[in-house]
């Protein structure tokens, strides 16, 4: 990665760590990596997109990259930049297919999906985004923030600091209550998750 202040190792540590400000710095470092951005945009332009498509794909790739790193998908034996570009290629290929903007098979061999991650989760995030939004909106902002920080695996101390709670015990209790509240909402909307039980039950 280009930004001199953060090495690939530091980026991985920051994105998988428990420090909110370091995480933000790492994401900004990726976002401001002009060499990576140019590569992503060049790829998209080479395969039928324009500059804005390239910028959009670059930004979405950062989100996917962050998620995959947090889920432990990246193995230390490869290049982080190559991994990122794998996400760009995969994301752009899928975008083209979804939008049917061009007969992609004639221009571009299907790229390898970036390894790791959870395909069911990716499916939910791609196809049921609005339903998720509707459910999330039934939570107070405070609960949404807690749910987010819990998923980021922040320590209860960090959550308490970020949310202005008195201590980690309060943070833990609040996080528990918010998750419980969200579960109640989820149970009222089995259409969002029920089919994943059926899929698993199949031999």
């Amino acid at each position, binding site marked *: 990665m280009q930004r001199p202040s953060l090495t690939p190792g530091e980026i991985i540590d920051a994105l998988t760590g428990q420090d909110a400000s370091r995480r933000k710095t790492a994401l900004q470092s990726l976002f401001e990596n002009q060499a990576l951005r140019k590569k992503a945009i060049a790829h998209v332009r080479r395969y039928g997109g324009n500059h804005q498509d390239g910028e959009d794909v670059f930004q979405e790739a950062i989100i996917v990259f962050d998620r995959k790193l947090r889920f432990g998908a990246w193995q230390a034996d490869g290049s982080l930049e190559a991994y990122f570009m794998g996400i760009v290629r995969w994301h752009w290929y899928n975008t083209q297919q979804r939008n049917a903007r061009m007969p992609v098979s004639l221009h571009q061999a299907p790229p390898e999906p970036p390894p790791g991650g*959870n395909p069911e989760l990716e499916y939910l995030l791609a196809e049921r985004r609005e339903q998720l*939004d509707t459910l999330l909106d039934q939570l107070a*902002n405070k609960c949404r923030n807690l*749910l*987010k920080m819990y998923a980021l695996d922040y320590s209860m101390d960090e959550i308490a600091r970020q949310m202005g709670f008195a201590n980690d015990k309060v943070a833990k209790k609040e996080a*528990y209550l918010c998750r419980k509240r*969200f579960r109640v909402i989820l149970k009222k909307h089995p259409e969002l998750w029920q089919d994943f039980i059926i899929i698993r039950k199949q031999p």
Partner: protein
Amino acid sequence: MSTHPSEKLIQNYLRGQLPADERDQFEKQLKTDPALAEEVAQQLAELAAAEQLIASETRAWMQEWQKPAQPVFRVNRFGWLAAIAAGALLLIAAIYLFRQSEAVPQEQADQTTPAVEKPIVNEVPPVPAVEPKPQPAPAEKPVATTPKPATPNYLAEARQYFQEPVLSDIRRTGTDNNVSLIRQAQAAYAATDYQRTLDLLAQTDSLRQQSATFLEAHAMFHLNRFAAAETSFEKLVVQNSRQFRYPAEWGLLICRLANFPNRQQAFQQQFEALLNNPQHPYFEQAKNLENALKK
């Protein structure tokens, strides 16, 4: 929520972090244990929701960073002279504008500050957000026009007709600290820092407060979270908020327009009802929107 002892195991499974043998064993168990399968499916949905929030936050940050991340202008040796000249011109213009503003009478300045307790619907008359367009010959009865699929850009129309809130119009609730936070959120909103607006509103833990919900809905709209913004506006409509009811109804309509074609049916129903109610404060705006969509 389950306090199942294997919650961490489920999380690791969902995050793809189990070793192959443990994963196989876990999947075998899933096929024979419906309760566990249901728990896993729900945790998956919870994880997806949390990841959606994380992605939204990252997108908002990237929006913030967008400006400084733009390529730096390269200026040649003559460019410096041009830059100095432009700076001087700007300075002159600023001095001129400053002197002009000093000449504005004080009472006129006072009039621009709305009363705090006055309902927003009275303060913001149903004036179109844009200059009214020429009206066609009036029909006997207003009829809603369903936007045709060929109509180019609903999102652009929605943005044009979206009405900004009157930021100073927040009810005071004694010395409640929430009011201070909401005012900070308003300042962030005025500075177009919509994610910070949401962050500040989050600290108030006052979703029930209508002012917070109203501002939150607007910030979400600007962050392109139309479904969420729609829900917030809808809450105010359902609550029949004296202060925000009508602006919220308009916001709701515009969110549905922005979310075309997903919310086409809901938009159409609401739009027809509004156009059939000339007493509605947003009737004129609806007519203008109808004309714009016809075009």
